[in-house]
């Protein structure tokens, strides 16, 4: 047969290679994908996220075999899985623990990217796909949380769907359209089930593939923030600071997997509710559309953003409007924006300041909650520091990152608590700190004395 591909492999593999890129894909992504040799602890979390994704898909498939997406029967069917399906409790606890552990792993993975500048050129798309994955995960977790049809499921969904009702003009109609009823009901449960088991997972898997393809196109960053492809090469043209992903990091990551599974199994077997943080106590009560539980809070992984939603009261919009006006003045007077932009950008900020006082604070709370996630997309263009990695930044930058992390945890804690005046004030300060971290990044990230970045990665053979 003419036109057959010439390949080096023989036998079955050769037959396959002539028809499908088996060997070339294996080489491009594993055995000849050169990753920097100085990866540390923080580099476990990417492969762990992939592991949890697989766990969630597999356990999810088995749960769907017993679960009933019906407002009359959903709660019972979850209890049925827990009590009567052989080993059903294990599958369900693996799935519920997996949901929380997914966020643990992904938050640490994102922090790694933040600290080592893994979002900087040429890895902007890797980061953007990653933030999109994070958004998908949030949607997936939210839709999934309605399915047990407990009190927290019900009222959590009620609150989040009503967020959309805050959008001016179209809001109320939009929230009815999302629910398919005037309140969260059977129709809502059914469609959330469809989103949770098929729509979002499909998008998620596509994004994960895109995240990896983009990563392997530009190569992995490392704790020193050095491009190993631009460094010295050996006589075969391979970067001297790189090692093939397989077998070096595939085996290395197995250590991470073992450590992770120890923690994971400990939670599944000994503390699947995690003191009410992974599975909230109120969710063991069937949904009641007439009675909100006395204290409702989202699951822990949403609470930092939820805190910022609660922080945005009518008074607080004055502060935000003031900050927008101040930003407009400073940008107009001091910035190096040229021509039209010099008027347009401050102009937009003034309009935002006016709208902050014209539209209800409720709407701005929703904007705060969404915007604080969406702002992550812009990180590659907000950071102007001459070095990528935190290792070579001025010492006070490390303090800024430290404050940002502590602030994020404090916001997360406040989000789990009932509202009270001192906590509300703290969350408002926290919201300002969070926003300032990002909005002022173009300024602070270039200030200070940066350390000399070495030519080669920092690495000591074991």
């Amino acid at each position, binding site marked *: 047969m003419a036109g057959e591909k010439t390949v080096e492999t023989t036998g079955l593999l050769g037959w396959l290679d002539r028809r499908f890129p088996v060997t070339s894909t294996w080489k491009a992504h594993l055995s000849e994908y050169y990753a920097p040799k100085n990866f540390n602890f923080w580099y476990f979390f990417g492969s762990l996220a992939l592991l949890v994704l697989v766990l969630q898909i597999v356990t999810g498939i088995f749960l769907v075999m017993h679960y009933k997406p019906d407002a009359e029967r959903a709660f019972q069917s979850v209890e049925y899985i827990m009590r009567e399906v052989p080993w059903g409790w294990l599958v369900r606890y693996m799935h519920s623990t997996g949901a929380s552990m997914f966020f643990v792993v992904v938050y640490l993975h994102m922090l790694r990217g933040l600290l080592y500048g893994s979002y900087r050129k040429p890895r902007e798309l890797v980061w953007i796909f990653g933030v999109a994955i994070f958004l998908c995960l949030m949607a997936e977790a939210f839709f999934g949380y309605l399915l047990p049809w407990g009190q927290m499921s019900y009222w959590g969904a009620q609150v989040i769907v009503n967020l959309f009702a805050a959008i001016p003009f179209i809001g109320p109609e939009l929230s009815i359209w999302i629910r398919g009823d*005037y309140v969260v009901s059977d*129709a809502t449960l059914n469609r959330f089930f469809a989103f949770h088991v098929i729509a979002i997972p499909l998008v998620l898997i596509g994004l994960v593939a895109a995240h990896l393809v983009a990563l392997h196109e530009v190569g992995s960053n490392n704790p020193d923030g050095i491009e190993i492809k631009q460094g010295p090469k050996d006589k075969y043209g391979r970067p001297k600071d790189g090692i093939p992903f397989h077998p070096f990091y595939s085996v290395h990551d197995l250590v991470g997997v073992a450590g992770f599974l120890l923690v994971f199994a400990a939670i599944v077997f000994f503390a699947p509710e995690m003191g009410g943080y992974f599975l909230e106590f109120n969710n063991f009560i069937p949904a009641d559309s007439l009675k909100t539980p006395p204290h409702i809070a989202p699951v822990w992984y949403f609470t930092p953003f939820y805190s910022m939603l609660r922080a945005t009261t*009518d008074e607080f919009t004055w502060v935000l409007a003031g900050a927008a006006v101040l930003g407009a003045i400073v940008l107009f007077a001091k910035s190096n924006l040229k021509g039209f932009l010099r008027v347009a950008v401050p102009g937009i900020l003034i309009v935002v300041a006016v709208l902050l006082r014209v539209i209800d604070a409720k709407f701005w709370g929703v904007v705060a909650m969404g915007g604080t996630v969406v702002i992550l997309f812009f990180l590659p263009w907000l950071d102007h520091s001459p070095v990528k990695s935190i290792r070579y930044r001025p010492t006070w930058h490390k303090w800024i990152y430290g404050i940002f992390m502590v602030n994020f945890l404090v916001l997360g804690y406040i989000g789990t608590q009932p509202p009270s005046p001192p906590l509300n004030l703290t969350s408002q300060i926290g919201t300002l700190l969070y926003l300032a971290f990002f909005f002022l990044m173009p300024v602070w990230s270039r200030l200070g004395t940066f350390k000399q970045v070495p030519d080669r990665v920092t690495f000591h053979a074991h």
Partner: protein
Amino acid sequence: MSQDTLVHDDDGAVDPNLPPDPSRRFWVTTACAVGGVAGVATAVPLVSTFSPSEKARAAGAPVEVDVGDIPVGSMKTVEWRGKPVWIMHRSPEQLAGLKTLDPLLADPQSKRPGFTPPYAENEGRSRKPELFVCVGICTHLGCSPTAHFETGGGGGLGADWQGGFLCPCHGSTFDLAGRVFKNKPAPDNLEVPPYQYLTDTRIIVGVDEDNKA
């Protein structure tokens, strides 16, 4: 490659560097546009399936309630369109207290449109002063507030608390006429649903002079 006639010649080969043929471009664009219209037309019914079904719409029927058995100072909850509707029997002292709260409220006169029918645009936001009817859904994000009828600091709501409702989700507070206090997450007073009296002790929720429901 056993064809009788030779097909692999270069007679029909097109130079890949030629500019696009404008006529083909036109038809490609047109075909995409027509295909796009068909795609959008298919999306419309799919998107429409999200709206409430006929069954859900029909379930929004009015509800009759016997209000003669509600003791003074307490309330009963009924379901209308899947939402809790509160019917509270207020005491004269509670009614007298409402006036004193005006400076602390975001919308004491219930002027904002959409939450108060004309017959309830009064101090007590009700048809008859003592009987208060409202939808027990917070105007912030749709939680159902809890009743805190105790007065004073006992309930943790401050020494000036005269009784009212607290939303557990985001801490909005409402007085005994469902009016929201200032600087709380909830932007509006609790919604007073359409209702009317059938007799002195029976009301119907979901229908009034203007709403045939």
